[in-house]
């Protein structure tokens, strides 16, 4: 085992997934074309489908990494490449420094039994098993005894708030309850790495928000390294530490929610954040001046970490620069109220 504590939880390096006949050889030839765009074009001309193109990113330990893209952008394929549900055509996926593409079947099973957990869009519950049996299934694969499975299953079932339904069958549950089972099952073996493939997309909006909040709550205590797939920019911005935006199999931008909203790299990304209330996702720091102006007559009480919305509300009638303080009350920078308003401006284009 090549466990390396300083390595990122997941590292993906020039990962390609090409569908079609003789994909490996075709990709090798096409890469002579140079840039990923040229390679993808060459592959498409041959009738192959490059579903994931040259993906590279890292997920730090304890980080909630969201991959966002529309349907057909390759995000589901990407997460299946990382979890090795499909074998990537080329590239490397390192989990704690270990390249799992090189791992034996046995080692993979080992990893899945102890280290990886996954939640599916349509839940993927086993229809012939009760809630407790579903949740206990990964433990059964580990070889745990019946009593032990039941005990641990009850713990996670309680964690997701389903106590009392442990002997129900999936068909007797509502959509939201089913996904709670899916979450509980993926957490049963206490994995370090957690894949969630559009876990809340099949739920109606109210339930979705409720589960998002509970999910954040669970993550706050468990601190897993997470790859979370979604097509919903609001969900991505709400949950993510960092977001990767995918388009046509390519990652077009990786950044914090704030960076995505305030500094989109191109029109495509900008289009997503267009209808998003930027003030709720960007913070004062993004427009803060480090050089303190000499003349600051007002102090509305801005703090580091305050959202733009809150900051703007405090400076509604002010025109002069105002100071920004950190937690201890020390002035660390200044903000022009006009900059706050400008940052919130939704582009009309």
């Amino acid at each position, binding site marked *: 085992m090549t466990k390396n504590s300083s390595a990122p939880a997941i590292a993906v390096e020039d990962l390609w997934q090409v569908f079609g006949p003789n994909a490996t050889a075709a990709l090798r030839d096409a890469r002579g074309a140079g840039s990923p765009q040229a390679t993808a074009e060459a592959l498409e001309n041959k009738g192959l489908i490059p579903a994931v193109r040259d993906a590279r990113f890292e997920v730090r330990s304890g980080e909630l990494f969201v991959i966002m893209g529309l349907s057909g952008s390759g995000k589901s394929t990407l997460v*299946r490449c990382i*979890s090795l*549900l499909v074998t990537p055509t080329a590239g490397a996926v390192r989990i704690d420094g270990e390249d799992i593409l090189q791992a034996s079947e046995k080692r993979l*099973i*080992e*990893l*899945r*039994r*102890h280290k*990886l*957990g*996954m939640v*599916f*869009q*349509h*839940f*993927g*519950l*086993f*229809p*012939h098993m009760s809630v407790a049996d579903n949740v206990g*299934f*990964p433990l*059964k*694969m*580990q070889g745990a005894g019946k009593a032990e499975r039941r005990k641990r299953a009850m713990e996670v079932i309680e964690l997701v708030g389903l106590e009392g339904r442990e002997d129900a069958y999936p068909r007797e549950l509502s959509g939201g309850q089913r996904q709670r089972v*899916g979450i509980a*099952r*993926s957490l049963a*073996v206490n994995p370090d790495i957690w*894949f969630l493939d559009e876990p809340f997309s099949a739920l109606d909006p109210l339930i979705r928000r409720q589960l998002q909040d509970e999910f954040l709550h669970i993550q706050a205590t468990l601190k897993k390294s997470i790859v979370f797939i979604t097509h919903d920019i609001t969900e991505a911005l709400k949950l993510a530490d960092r977001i990767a935006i995918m388009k046509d199999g390519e990652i077009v931008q990786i950044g914090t929610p704030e960076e995505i909203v305030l500094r989109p790299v191109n029109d495509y990304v900008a289009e997503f954040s267009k209808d998003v209330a930027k003030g709720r996702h960007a913070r004062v720091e993004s427009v803060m001046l480090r050089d303190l102006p000499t003349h600051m007559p007002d102090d509305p009480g801005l703090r580091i970490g305050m959202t733009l919305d809150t900051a703007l509300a405090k400076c509604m009638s002010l025109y002069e620069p105002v100071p920004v303080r950190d937690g201890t009350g020390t002035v660390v920078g200044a903000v022009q109220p006009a900059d706050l308003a400008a940052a919130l401006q939704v582009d009309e284009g």
Partner: protein
Amino acid sequence: MSLSLTRGAQAALLVLAVAVITRLLGGQMAWLVGWPEALTVPMTEWVGAAVGSFLSVFKPIARFFSLLLSYPMTWIGALLGYAPWPLVLGGVTALGWMIGGLRLAALGFFGLGFVVLSGYWAESMNTLALVVVSVPLALVTGAAIGILAYEYPRLKGPVQALLDIMQTVPTFAYLTPLLVLFGFGPVVGLIASAIYAAPPMARNVLLGLERVEHEIREAAVMSGGTRRQQLFLVELPAATTQIMVGINQSLMAALSMVIIAAVIGGFDDIGWEVLLTMRKALFGQSFLAGLVIVVFAVVIDRMSGALALQRPAQDRRVAWAMLAAGLAVSGWALAAGWNPDGVAAFDGVADRVDDAVGRFTATNGAALDAVKNNAMFYGLLPLRIGLADAVLPFTWGFSWTAKHGAIFYGATAAIAGFLVWRGHLTAGLVIGVLAIMLETGISQLPWPVVIVGAGALGWVSGGWKLTRLVVILLGLILISGLWERALLSLYLSGASVVACAILGGALGLWGAVSETAWRVLRPVCDLLQTIPLFVFLIPVLMFFQIGEFSAFLAICLYAIVPMIRYTRHGLINTPEELIEAAQATGAGRWQTLFEVRAPYAAPTILLGLNQTILYAFAMLVIAALIGTTGLGQSIYLALGQADVGLGVTAGAAMAILALVADRLVQGFAEERRRALGL
């Protein structure tokens, strides 16, 4: 003008040209009509020799296997034979209770009760013993094949082709080689039914596994299961419903085959009883024995069918009580010295049914004969040998002369010309082809017309690839020397299919427009589909004696069901928005039906027609028992003479006809589906 011809018109034009040429020149050049004897390959002998030597290699193994299988069969036979009927009755009732509560318990009780009273208990138990041994064999083999095809995608194509072939090769054709391999006796029936019952299981296991949700499979992988754990702990259990459907179909196939296999004889089972009484023209007895088979089929079908449904758990204590009651009655019967197998309340009934049928046919004989003769003279015969030969003073009251021919073709030309003038070029050409077919008769069609016609249909429905397949396959029959018999089979199945399509389509339409009609039709369809093939022969034989018309009726009875079902299903299941859109534009009920529902239902109805064709071919062989000519008869004769060559070649020819018809219709259905964007 020729540039703008549609595919269909081009094909029809070609066929019409070939038909006209062969019709005009056929008189001078006999080789244009019948395939010359000199060019016929003795395929029957070759196949006989090849298969024969192949079989002789495996004969010792087969005989050993046969010996091996005879043990469990004897044991189960003895077990069921010696078990007192009250106990078996209690057991089946208890089983019914466990599966489906009061309803199925009652079905089991009254069903088996009927068997007891009929006096055919011992024979029924012999049949049941065959089913009990052959079904597990079929289920295990079928499941293994299904799982292998699923696990190794490379095997899937060949396996599906094999299953297709196994289900198109007529049942009797299996029996001859098996007879040679395993020798006379019940083991042949056992193996034949296991072979016949395995494909539905394999199909359903494969289908069920393929239909397991993607994410369920992935969840099993991500849980860290090994491949075997994924398969046995997750995928197979998740496919249970479909597998249960497979078990149900497998059971029904086995029962059907066990009964058919009775023609080999050597086992005193219920199928043999039917055959024996039928041969002696004891219709009362064969009717009663047939009813016993029907009851068996219904009980087995409904009970195993219920396994695939979502059902509440039943109280076990009730089941134990039923079993205990059966045991108590058996005990009492033994103690009282009352022979529990000797109940035959219907002994007299059979005679009375016999008398009644006899009286009925005696008094209504003239009417029945009139029905039969009219159908023969004005329908079947002209189709078979053509108007030119079928119109005689004895049948139509005058004989067909050149003048009649001229009038006939003149009228045809007028109709066709009118259609072409109105822009229906293809329809006009097709009318021309049909007229020539009717005048010549299907069994006397010149071979170029059949081959070019089928090839042209193939080209229209599926392109060159299908044409090639169709021409090669039919060519094989042509040079094998079985051509004339194949045409005879084609004629009878064709006539039945046309009758089924018209009548079944009408009934399906009726079922679609009237809920009340469907409430009547549905149980009839259910029943007709549950009855083993063999039993259809009894009623037609009772009223119309041996002959082609009886065979025609038996085929129609069996083959009409899919046509009714699919027609109704297709018409009923038009998406609601389409209907609403039609109504919103002011369409009336019938307008909606013909302008919206019917076009949308076309692919489904074509699939129904496809099923009807396959059913007709399956029944055609069984109908050989009551007098048909053609391939079915050859297969049946081959069985009697243990002539492997003839049995296998005729069986293969039959399968080819079914396969060709199947591919052609599927092609059209596929084309319609594509056109509708389904």
